[in-house]
Protein backbone atom coordinates (compact mmCIF):
# COMPACT_ATOMS: atom_id res chain seq x y z
CA UNK A 1 0.00 0.00 0.00
CA UNK A 2 2.72 2.45 1.00
CA UNK A 3 5.21 1.20 -1.58
CA UNK A 4 3.09 1.86 -4.62
CA UNK A 5 3.20 5.68 -4.43
CA UNK A 6 6.96 5.50 -3.80
CA UNK A 7 7.38 3.22 -6.81
CA UNK A 8 5.29 5.58 -8.91
CA UNK A 9 7.33 8.56 -7.76
CA UNK A 10 10.57 6.78 -8.69
CA UNK A 11 9.10 5.79 -12.03
CA UNK A 12 8.00 9.33 -12.86
CA UNK A 13 11.40 10.67 -11.74
CA UNK A 14 13.11 8.13 -14.03
CA UNK A 15 10.87 9.22 -16.93
CA UNK A 16 11.65 12.90 -16.42
CA UNK A 17 15.38 12.30 -16.07
CA UNK A 18 15.34 9.99 -19.10
CA UNK A 19 13.57 12.64 -21.18
CA UNK A 20 16.05 15.23 -19.95
CA UNK A 21 18.98 13.01 -20.97
CA UNK A 22 17.53 12.41 -24.43
CA UNK A 23 16.71 16.09 -24.92
CA UNK A 24 20.26 16.97 -23.91
CA UNK A 25 21.74 14.48 -26.37
CA UNK A 26 19.72 15.55 -29.41
CA UNK A 27 20.41 18.42 -28.36
CA UNK A 28 17.38 20.71 -28.39
CA UNK A 29 19.65 23.69 -27.72
CA UNK A 30 23.40 24.08 -27.40
CA UNK A 31 22.68 25.64 -23.99
CA UNK A 32 20.85 22.53 -22.74
CA UNK A 33 23.15 19.95 -21.12
CA UNK A 34 22.29 16.30 -20.60
CA UNK A 35 21.11 14.95 -17.27
CA UNK A 36 24.39 13.13 -16.70
CA UNK A 37 26.51 16.22 -17.44
CA UNK A 38 24.40 18.22 -15.01
CA UNK A 39 24.68 15.61 -12.28
CA UNK A 40 28.44 15.44 -12.77
CA UNK A 41 28.63 19.21 -12.37
CA UNK A 42 26.48 18.94 -9.23
CA UNK A 43 28.78 16.29 -7.77
CA UNK A 44 31.88 18.35 -8.47
CA UNK A 45 30.28 21.42 -6.82
CA UNK A 46 29.48 19.22 -3.85
CA UNK A 47 33.05 17.91 -3.93
CA UNK A 48 34.67 21.34 -3.66
CA UNK A 49 31.96 22.52 -1.23
CA UNK A 50 30.97 25.52 -3.34
CA UNK A 51 27.32 24.52 -3.52
CA UNK A 52 27.07 24.21 0.26
CA UNK A 53 28.58 27.66 0.72
CA UNK A 54 26.08 28.96 -1.80
CA UNK A 55 23.17 27.40 0.09
CA UNK A 56 24.38 28.81 3.39
CA UNK A 57 23.94 32.19 1.71
CA UNK A 58 20.63 31.46 -0.06
CA UNK A 59 18.95 29.76 2.87
CA UNK A 60 19.33 32.83 5.10
CA UNK A 61 16.73 35.04 3.38
CA UNK A 62 14.71 31.97 2.38
CA UNK A 63 14.29 30.45 5.84
CA UNK A 64 13.92 33.82 7.53
CA UNK A 65 11.35 34.93 4.96
CA UNK A 66 9.40 31.67 5.18
CA UNK A 67 9.29 31.69 8.98
CA UNK A 68 8.08 35.29 9.00
CA UNK A 69 5.54 34.57 6.24
CA UNK A 70 4.20 31.46 7.97
CA UNK A 71 3.93 33.11 11.36
CA UNK A 72 2.44 36.43 10.30
CA UNK A 73 0.63 34.96 7.31
CA UNK A 74 -1.32 32.51 9.45
CA UNK A 75 -1.81 35.11 12.20
CA UNK A 76 -3.10 37.80 9.86
CA UNK A 77 -5.13 35.20 7.94
CA UNK A 78 -6.86 34.05 11.12
CA UNK A 79 -7.59 37.62 12.03
CA UNK A 80 -8.96 38.52 8.62
CA UNK A 81 -11.07 35.35 8.63
CA UNK A 82 -12.52 36.12 12.05
CA UNK A 83 -13.26 39.81 11.70
CA UNK A 84 -15.22 41.32 8.86
CA UNK A 85 -13.85 44.78 9.62
CA UNK A 86 -10.26 43.59 9.53
CA UNK A 87 -10.92 41.87 6.25
CA UNK A 88 -12.32 45.08 4.81
CA UNK A 89 -9.16 46.86 5.90
CA UNK A 90 -6.43 44.38 4.97
CA UNK A 91 -7.94 41.82 2.60
CA UNK A 92 -7.39 43.91 -0.56
CA UNK A 93 -3.68 44.46 0.25
CA UNK A 94 -2.95 40.76 0.03
CA UNK A 95 -5.03 40.29 -3.07
CA UNK A 96 -3.05 43.10 -4.73
CA UNK A 97 0.20 41.60 -3.42
CA UNK A 98 -0.67 38.24 -4.88
CA UNK A 99 -1.52 39.60 -8.31
CA UNK A 100 1.15 42.33 -8.57
CA UNK A 101 4.18 41.42 -10.69
CA UNK A 102 7.00 40.98 -8.19
CA UNK A 103 9.75 42.12 -10.52
CA UNK A 104 8.14 45.56 -10.56
CA UNK A 105 8.33 45.75 -6.78
CA UNK A 106 11.99 44.82 -6.48
CA UNK A 107 13.42 48.24 -7.45
CA UNK A 108 11.17 49.87 -4.85
CA UNK A 109 12.28 47.41 -2.17
CA UNK A 110 15.92 48.05 -3.05
CA UNK A 111 15.35 51.78 -2.89
CA UNK A 112 13.86 51.51 0.58
CA UNK A 113 15.88 48.68 2.13
CA UNK A 114 19.12 48.66 0.13
CA UNK A 115 20.67 45.59 -1.42
CA UNK A 116 21.30 43.59 1.75
CA UNK A 117 19.52 40.73 3.46
CA UNK A 118 16.44 42.81 4.38
CA UNK A 119 15.42 43.34 0.78
CA UNK A 120 15.84 39.65 -0.01
CA UNK A 121 13.79 38.62 3.00
CA UNK A 122 11.14 41.05 1.81
CA UNK A 123 11.08 39.50 -1.64
CA UNK A 124 10.56 36.04 -0.10
CA UNK A 125 7.76 37.41 2.11
CA UNK A 126 6.04 39.25 -0.72
CA UNK A 127 6.05 36.02 -2.69
CA UNK A 128 5.07 33.65 0.10
CA UNK A 129 2.77 35.58 2.39
CA UNK A 130 -0.29 36.49 0.28
CA UNK A 131 -1.25 32.92 -0.55
CA UNK A 132 -0.80 31.89 3.09
CA UNK A 133 -2.95 34.80 4.28
CA UNK A 134 -5.64 34.29 1.66
CA UNK A 135 -5.86 30.52 2.20
CA UNK A 136 -5.98 30.89 5.96
CA UNK A 137 -8.65 33.58 5.97
CA UNK A 138 -10.76 31.73 3.42
CA UNK A 139 -10.55 28.50 5.40
CA UNK A 140 -11.47 30.24 8.64
CA UNK A 141 -14.48 31.85 7.03
CA UNK A 142 -15.62 28.51 5.61
CA UNK A 143 -15.65 26.65 8.91
CA UNK A 144 -19.05 24.88 8.95
CA UNK A 145 -21.50 26.91 11.01
CA UNK A 146 -23.04 23.79 12.50
CA UNK A 147 -19.89 22.63 14.31
CA UNK A 148 -19.34 26.15 15.63
CA UNK A 149 -22.95 26.15 16.88
CA UNK A 150 -22.35 22.72 18.36
CA UNK A 151 -19.33 23.96 20.32
CA UNK A 152 -21.24 27.01 21.54
CA UNK A 153 -24.21 24.92 22.62
CA UNK A 154 -21.80 22.83 24.71
CA UNK A 155 -20.51 26.02 26.35
CA UNK A 156 -17.31 26.61 24.37
CA UNK A 157 -15.58 29.93 24.99
CA UNK A 158 -14.49 32.02 21.99
CA UNK A 159 -10.97 30.69 22.54
CA UNK A 160 -12.25 27.07 22.52
CA UNK A 161 -14.07 27.72 19.26
CA UNK A 162 -10.87 29.07 17.72
CA UNK A 163 -8.48 26.42 19.06
CA UNK A 164 -10.67 23.32 19.03
CA UNK A 165 -12.92 24.03 16.04
CA UNK A 166 -11.77 26.72 13.63
CA UNK A 167 -8.04 25.93 13.49
CA UNK A 168 -8.38 22.15 13.14
CA UNK A 169 -11.16 22.59 10.57
CA UNK A 170 -9.10 25.10 8.61
CA UNK A 171 -5.80 23.26 8.91
CA UNK A 172 -5.90 21.31 5.61
CA UNK A 173 -6.40 24.54 3.64
CA UNK A 174 -3.91 26.43 5.81
CA UNK A 175 -1.34 23.74 5.05
CA UNK A 176 -2.06 23.81 1.36
CA UNK A 177 -1.50 27.57 1.56
CA UNK A 178 1.78 26.92 3.34
CA UNK A 179 2.85 24.52 0.61
CA UNK A 180 2.07 27.08 -2.09
CA UNK A 181 3.76 29.77 0.00
CA UNK A 182 6.92 27.70 0.41
CA UNK A 183 7.11 27.07 -3.34
CA UNK A 184 6.63 30.77 -4.01
CA UNK A 185 9.22 31.61 -1.35
CA UNK A 186 11.81 29.44 -3.12
CA UNK A 187 11.14 31.31 -6.34
CA UNK A 188 11.39 34.59 -4.41
CA UNK A 189 14.75 33.70 -2.87
CA UNK A 190 16.31 32.84 -6.24
CA UNK A 191 14.71 35.84 -7.92
CA UNK A 192 16.13 38.11 -5.23
CA UNK A 193 19.60 36.71 -5.86
CA UNK A 194 19.24 37.15 -9.59
CA UNK A 195 17.75 40.65 -9.47
CA UNK A 196 19.23 42.34 -6.41
CA UNK A 197 22.77 41.14 -5.79
CA UNK A 198 24.15 37.85 -7.08
CA UNK A 199 24.87 35.71 -4.05
CA UNK A 200 24.41 32.05 -3.18
CA UNK A 201 22.68 29.77 -5.63
CA UNK A 202 21.51 32.71 -7.70
CA UNK A 203 25.17 33.66 -8.14
CA UNK A 204 26.03 30.14 -9.37
CA UNK A 205 23.19 30.34 -11.86
CA UNK A 206 24.07 33.77 -13.24
CA UNK A 207 27.84 33.21 -13.14
CA UNK A 208 27.74 29.82 -14.90
CA UNK A 209 25.46 31.25 -17.53
CA UNK A 210 27.80 34.15 -18.17
CA UNK A 211 30.72 31.72 -18.73
CA UNK A 212 28.51 29.28 -20.65
CA UNK A 213 29.00 26.52 -18.03
CA UNK A 214 25.47 25.23 -18.63
CA UNK A 215 25.84 21.94 -16.73
CA UNK A 216 26.63 23.88 -13.53
CA UNK A 217 23.73 26.25 -14.16
CA UNK A 218 21.29 23.39 -14.58
CA UNK A 219 22.82 21.57 -11.62
CA UNK A 220 22.09 24.60 -9.41
CA UNK A 221 18.51 24.87 -10.72
CA UNK A 222 18.02 21.13 -10.22
CA UNK A 223 19.32 21.30 -6.66
CA UNK A 224 16.93 24.08 -5.69
CA UNK A 225 13.97 22.12 -7.08
CA UNK A 226 15.14 19.05 -5.18
CA UNK A 227 15.43 21.04 -1.98
CA UNK A 228 11.93 22.48 -2.46
CA UNK A 229 10.48 18.99 -2.96
CA UNK A 230 12.19 17.71 0.19
CA UNK A 231 10.96 20.73 2.11
CA UNK A 232 7.37 20.23 0.93
CA UNK A 233 7.50 16.57 1.94
CA UNK A 234 8.68 17.51 5.41
CA UNK A 235 5.81 19.98 5.65
CA UNK A 236 3.38 17.19 4.79
CA UNK A 237 4.90 15.00 7.52
CA UNK A 238 4.44 17.87 9.96
CA UNK A 239 0.82 18.27 8.93
CA UNK A 240 0.07 14.57 9.41
CA UNK A 241 1.76 14.71 12.77
CA UNK A 242 -0.07 17.80 14.01
CA UNK A 243 -3.50 17.06 12.55
CA UNK A 244 -3.85 13.33 12.43
CA UNK A 245 -7.47 13.61 11.34
CA UNK A 246 -6.65 15.56 8.17
CA UNK A 247 -5.80 12.45 6.18
CA UNK A 248 -8.87 10.62 7.40
CA UNK A 249 -11.34 12.23 5.06
CA UNK A 250 -14.22 14.49 5.81
CA UNK A 251 -17.79 13.84 6.82
CA UNK A 252 -19.80 15.30 4.02
CA UNK A 253 -23.37 14.28 4.73
Amino acid sequence: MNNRPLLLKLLSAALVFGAWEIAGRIPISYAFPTFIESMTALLSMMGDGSIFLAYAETLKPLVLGLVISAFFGIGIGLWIGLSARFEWLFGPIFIVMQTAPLAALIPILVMVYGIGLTSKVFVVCVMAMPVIVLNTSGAVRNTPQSIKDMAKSFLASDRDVLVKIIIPAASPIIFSGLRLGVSAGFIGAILAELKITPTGVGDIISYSRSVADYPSMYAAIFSIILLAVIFLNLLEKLENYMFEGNNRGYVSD
Partner: protein
Amino acid sequence: MAMSQIDSAAVKTAQPLVDSAVSVRNVSKKYGDVQALKDLSLEFPKGELTSLLGPSGCGKTTLLKIIAGLLPHDSGQIEVGGKTVTGPGPDRAFVFQDFALLPWANVLRNAAFGLELRGVAKSEREAIAEKYIREVGLAGFENKFPHQLSGGMRQRVGLARALSVNAQVLLLDEPFSAVDEQTRRKFQEDMLALVANEKKTFIFVTHSIEEAVYVSDQIAILLPRPSRVSEIIRPTSFRGKGVENIRRDSEYLDIVDEIWASLRSYVE
Protein backbone atom coordinates in the same frame (compact mmCIF):
# COMPACT_ATOMS: atom_id res chain seq x y z
CA MET B 1 -63.73 18.62 11.82
CA ALA B 2 -63.12 15.71 14.16
CA MET B 3 -59.76 17.23 14.90
CA SER B 4 -61.05 20.18 16.87
CA GLN B 5 -62.68 18.00 19.50
CA ILE B 6 -59.49 16.19 20.33
CA ASP B 7 -57.33 19.24 20.35
CA SER B 8 -59.54 21.52 22.39
CA ALA B 9 -59.95 18.77 24.97
CA ALA B 10 -56.22 18.17 24.94
CA VAL B 11 -55.28 21.81 25.31
CA LYS B 12 -57.55 22.19 28.30
CA THR B 13 -56.26 19.21 30.21
CA ALA B 14 -52.62 19.35 29.19
CA GLN B 15 -51.05 22.35 30.75
CA PRO B 16 -51.96 22.81 34.40
CA LEU B 17 -51.33 19.15 35.28
CA VAL B 18 -47.52 18.87 35.20
CA ASP B 19 -44.81 21.38 35.94
CA SER B 20 -42.76 22.65 33.04
CA ALA B 21 -39.08 22.10 32.39
CA VAL B 22 -39.15 24.72 29.64
CA SER B 23 -41.58 27.59 29.21
CA VAL B 24 -41.76 29.67 26.08
CA ARG B 25 -43.84 32.81 26.52
CA ASN B 26 -44.87 35.20 23.77
CA VAL B 27 -41.65 34.76 21.84
CA SER B 28 -41.20 36.56 18.53
CA LYS B 29 -38.33 36.37 16.11
CA LYS B 30 -37.76 38.11 12.79
CA TYR B 31 -35.01 37.45 10.26
CA GLY B 32 -34.99 40.80 8.51
CA ASP B 33 -38.47 40.92 7.01
CA VAL B 34 -39.27 37.25 7.60
CA GLN B 35 -41.40 36.72 10.68
CA ALA B 36 -40.09 33.31 11.78
CA LEU B 37 -41.97 33.21 15.11
CA LYS B 38 -44.81 35.43 16.24
CA ASP B 39 -45.96 35.67 19.83
CA LEU B 40 -45.42 31.95 20.38
CA SER B 41 -46.13 30.37 23.76
CA LEU B 42 -45.60 26.74 24.68
CA GLU B 43 -44.97 24.68 27.82
CA PHE B 44 -42.74 21.59 27.87
CA PRO B 45 -43.62 19.27 30.78
CA LYS B 46 -40.76 17.89 32.83
CA GLY B 47 -39.62 14.35 32.05
CA GLU B 48 -41.68 14.13 28.86
CA LEU B 49 -40.98 14.13 25.18
CA THR B 50 -42.62 16.96 23.30
CA SER B 51 -42.51 17.00 19.52
CA LEU B 52 -42.58 20.12 17.42
CA LEU B 53 -44.29 19.10 14.23
CA GLY B 54 -44.98 21.22 11.21
CA PRO B 55 -44.23 21.90 7.57
CA SER B 56 -40.73 23.08 6.77
CA GLY B 57 -40.20 26.78 7.19
CA CYS B 58 -42.64 27.11 10.09
CA GLY B 59 -39.90 28.00 12.55
CA LYS B 60 -39.14 24.70 14.33
CA THR B 61 -35.37 25.03 14.11
CA THR B 62 -35.60 28.70 15.02
CA LEU B 63 -37.59 27.92 18.16
CA LEU B 64 -35.19 25.14 19.15
CA LYS B 65 -32.12 27.33 18.65
CA ILE B 66 -33.72 30.11 20.68
CA ILE B 67 -34.38 27.65 23.51
CA ALA B 68 -30.78 26.45 23.18
CA GLY B 69 -29.59 30.04 23.53
CA LEU B 70 -27.85 29.88 20.16
CA LEU B 71 -30.08 32.50 18.59
CA PRO B 72 -31.35 35.74 20.18
CA HIS B 73 -35.09 36.39 20.12
CA ASP B 74 -36.71 39.77 19.62
CA SER B 75 -39.27 39.69 22.40
CA GLY B 76 -40.88 37.36 24.91
CA GLN B 77 -39.28 35.09 27.47
CA ILE B 78 -37.81 31.59 27.71
CA GLU B 79 -37.40 29.84 31.03
CA VAL B 80 -35.55 26.58 31.58
CA GLY B 81 -35.92 25.12 35.05
CA GLY B 82 -37.31 28.45 36.23
CA LYS B 83 -34.32 30.45 34.99
CA THR B 84 -34.52 32.89 32.10
CA VAL B 85 -32.43 31.87 29.11
CA THR B 86 -29.82 34.37 27.99
CA GLY B 87 -27.44 32.00 26.19
CA PRO B 88 -26.34 28.37 26.05
CA GLY B 89 -26.29 26.66 29.45
CA PRO B 90 -25.34 23.41 31.15
CA ASP B 91 -29.01 22.54 31.58
CA ARG B 92 -29.51 22.01 27.82
CA ALA B 93 -27.82 19.78 25.25
CA PHE B 94 -28.39 19.85 21.50
CA VAL B 95 -28.53 17.03 18.96
CA PHE B 96 -28.00 18.36 15.44
CA GLN B 97 -29.74 17.39 12.24
CA ASP B 98 -26.39 17.12 10.42
CA PHE B 99 -24.74 15.45 13.45
CA ALA B 100 -22.11 18.24 13.81
CA LEU B 101 -19.33 15.79 14.67
CA LEU B 102 -15.68 16.76 14.53
CA PRO B 103 -14.33 14.92 11.47
CA TRP B 104 -10.80 14.90 12.88
CA ALA B 105 -11.79 13.33 16.21
CA ASN B 106 -12.67 9.70 16.92
CA VAL B 107 -15.97 8.53 18.40
CA LEU B 108 -14.67 8.67 21.96
CA ARG B 109 -13.39 12.23 21.71
CA ASN B 110 -16.54 13.34 19.89
CA ALA B 111 -18.79 11.82 22.53
CA ALA B 112 -16.67 13.35 25.30
CA PHE B 113 -16.39 16.75 23.58
CA GLY B 114 -19.11 18.44 25.65
CA LEU B 115 -17.30 17.38 28.82
CA GLU B 116 -13.94 18.40 27.34
CA LEU B 117 -15.31 21.91 26.86
CA ARG B 118 -16.45 21.92 30.47
CA GLY B 119 -12.92 21.15 31.63
CA VAL B 120 -13.60 17.63 32.91
CA ALA B 121 -10.36 15.63 33.25
CA LYS B 122 -9.56 13.29 30.37
CA SER B 123 -9.88 9.96 32.21
CA GLU B 124 -13.11 10.99 33.86
CA ARG B 125 -14.77 12.35 30.73
CA GLU B 126 -13.72 9.30 28.71
CA ALA B 127 -15.20 6.97 31.30
CA ILE B 128 -18.51 8.85 31.14
CA ALA B 129 -18.47 8.99 27.34
CA GLU B 130 -17.72 5.27 27.13
CA LYS B 131 -20.77 4.54 29.25
CA TYR B 132 -23.04 6.48 26.92
CA ILE B 133 -21.38 5.11 23.81
CA ARG B 134 -22.37 1.69 25.15
CA GLU B 135 -25.86 2.95 25.98
CA VAL B 136 -26.48 4.14 22.43
CA GLY B 137 -25.18 0.83 21.07
CA LEU B 138 -21.77 1.86 19.74
CA ALA B 139 -19.50 -0.18 22.03
CA GLY B 140 -16.42 -1.25 20.08
CA PHE B 141 -16.47 1.82 17.81
CA GLU B 142 -14.71 4.20 20.22
CA ASN B 143 -11.64 4.58 18.03
CA LYS B 144 -13.43 4.91 14.71
CA PHE B 145 -13.66 8.24 12.94
CA PRO B 146 -16.97 9.76 11.79
CA HIS B 147 -16.33 9.08 8.10
CA GLN B 148 -16.02 5.38 8.92
CA LEU B 149 -19.56 5.28 10.36
CA SER B 150 -23.00 5.14 8.75
CA GLY B 151 -25.37 8.09 9.15
CA GLY B 152 -27.30 6.29 11.86
CA MET B 153 -24.16 5.54 13.81
CA ARG B 154 -22.99 9.14 13.50
CA GLN B 155 -26.22 10.35 15.02
CA ARG B 156 -25.77 7.87 17.87
CA VAL B 157 -22.46 9.59 18.57
CA GLY B 158 -24.31 12.92 18.59
CA LEU B 159 -26.78 11.44 21.04
CA ALA B 160 -24.02 10.03 23.28
CA ARG B 161 -22.36 13.47 23.31
CA ALA B 162 -25.60 15.13 24.39
CA LEU B 163 -26.30 12.51 27.06
CA SER B 164 -22.76 12.66 28.47
CA VAL B 165 -23.12 16.23 29.72
CA ASN B 166 -26.12 15.18 31.81
CA ALA B 167 -28.28 18.14 30.85
CA GLN B 168 -31.88 18.14 32.03
CA VAL B 169 -33.25 19.18 28.66
CA LEU B 170 -32.34 17.54 25.36
CA LEU B 171 -33.04 19.48 22.19
CA LEU B 172 -33.15 17.33 19.07
CA ASP B 173 -33.48 18.97 15.65
CA GLU B 174 -34.78 16.38 13.17
CA PRO B 175 -32.17 13.97 14.49
CA PHE B 176 -33.22 11.06 12.29
CA SER B 177 -34.01 12.84 9.04
CA ALA B 178 -30.66 11.91 7.47
CA VAL B 179 -31.00 8.28 8.49
CA ASP B 180 -32.51 5.42 6.49
CA GLU B 181 -35.99 4.13 7.31
CA GLN B 182 -35.07 0.93 9.16
CA THR B 183 -32.45 2.67 11.27
CA ARG B 184 -34.95 5.37 11.94
CA ARG B 185 -37.49 2.90 13.34
CA LYS B 186 -34.86 1.42 15.60
CA PHE B 187 -33.97 4.91 16.75
CA GLN B 188 -37.58 5.67 17.56
CA GLU B 189 -37.85 2.57 19.73
CA ASP B 190 -34.58 3.51 21.44
CA MET B 191 -35.91 7.01 22.04
CA LEU B 192 -38.87 5.61 23.96
CA ALA B 193 -36.52 3.59 26.16
CA LEU B 194 -34.29 6.61 26.64
CA VAL B 195 -37.17 8.85 27.71
CA ALA B 196 -38.27 6.19 30.18
CA ASN B 197 -34.77 5.60 31.60
CA GLU B 198 -33.15 9.01 31.57
CA LYS B 199 -35.79 11.11 33.31
CA LYS B 200 -34.96 14.05 31.09
CA THR B 201 -37.11 16.46 29.14
CA PHE B 202 -36.88 15.95 25.39
CA ILE B 203 -37.81 18.54 22.80
CA PHE B 204 -37.93 16.79 19.49
CA VAL B 205 -38.31 18.47 16.12
CA THR B 206 -39.62 16.34 13.31
CA HIS B 207 -41.53 16.70 10.08
CA SER B 208 -42.74 13.11 10.18
CA ILE B 209 -46.27 12.77 11.55
CA GLU B 210 -45.85 9.04 12.31
CA GLU B 211 -42.59 9.66 14.12
CA ALA B 212 -44.10 12.43 16.23
CA VAL B 213 -47.10 10.39 17.25
CA TYR B 214 -44.98 7.31 17.90
CA VAL B 215 -42.48 8.88 20.29
CA SER B 216 -44.29 11.80 21.90
CA ASP B 217 -46.04 12.43 25.16
CA GLN B 218 -47.14 15.73 23.69
CA ILE B 219 -47.23 16.99 20.12
CA ALA B 220 -47.25 20.69 19.31
CA ILE B 221 -48.33 21.41 15.79
CA LEU B 222 -46.76 24.54 14.35
CA LEU B 223 -48.16 26.29 11.33
CA PRO B 224 -46.51 29.00 9.22
CA ARG B 225 -47.64 32.41 7.98
CA PRO B 226 -48.06 33.66 10.59
CA SER B 227 -46.09 31.11 12.53
CA ARG B 228 -48.05 29.81 15.52
CA VAL B 229 -48.89 26.78 17.65
CA SER B 230 -52.12 25.58 16.16
CA GLU B 231 -52.81 22.52 18.32
CA ILE B 232 -51.39 20.55 21.20
CA ILE B 233 -52.15 16.84 21.22
CA ARG B 234 -51.48 14.42 24.06
CA PRO B 235 -51.85 10.78 23.06
CA THR B 236 -53.07 8.85 26.08
CA SER B 237 -53.96 5.23 25.55
CA PHE B 238 -51.16 3.50 23.60
CA ARG B 239 -48.03 4.64 25.44
CA GLY B 240 -48.00 1.71 27.85
CA LYS B 241 -48.84 -1.02 25.36
CA GLY B 242 -45.32 -1.92 24.20
CA VAL B 243 -43.40 -0.69 21.18
CA GLU B 244 -44.64 -3.45 18.84
CA ASN B 245 -48.29 -2.54 19.27
CA ILE B 246 -48.21 1.21 18.93
CA ARG B 247 -48.41 1.34 15.15
CA ARG B 248 -51.55 -0.82 15.15
CA ASP B 249 -53.31 1.04 17.93
CA SER B 250 -56.49 2.76 16.84
CA GLU B 251 -55.76 5.98 18.74
CA TYR B 252 -52.32 6.12 17.08
CA LEU B 253 -53.89 5.73 13.64
CA ASP B 254 -56.62 8.27 14.37
CA ILE B 255 -54.17 10.91 15.56
CA VAL B 256 -51.93 10.38 12.52
CA ASP B 257 -54.94 10.84 10.22
CA GLU B 258 -56.18 13.91 12.01
CA ILE B 259 -52.81 15.63 12.03
CA TRP B 260 -52.51 14.97 8.32
CA ALA B 261 -55.96 16.43 7.76
CA SER B 262 -54.95 19.65 9.43
CA LEU B 263 -51.51 19.89 7.81
CA ARG B 264 -52.38 18.92 4.24
CA SER B 265 -53.50 22.37 3.24
CA TYR B 266 -50.04 23.73 4.10
CA VAL B 267 -48.17 21.33 1.85
CA GLU B 268 -47.24 22.94 -1.42
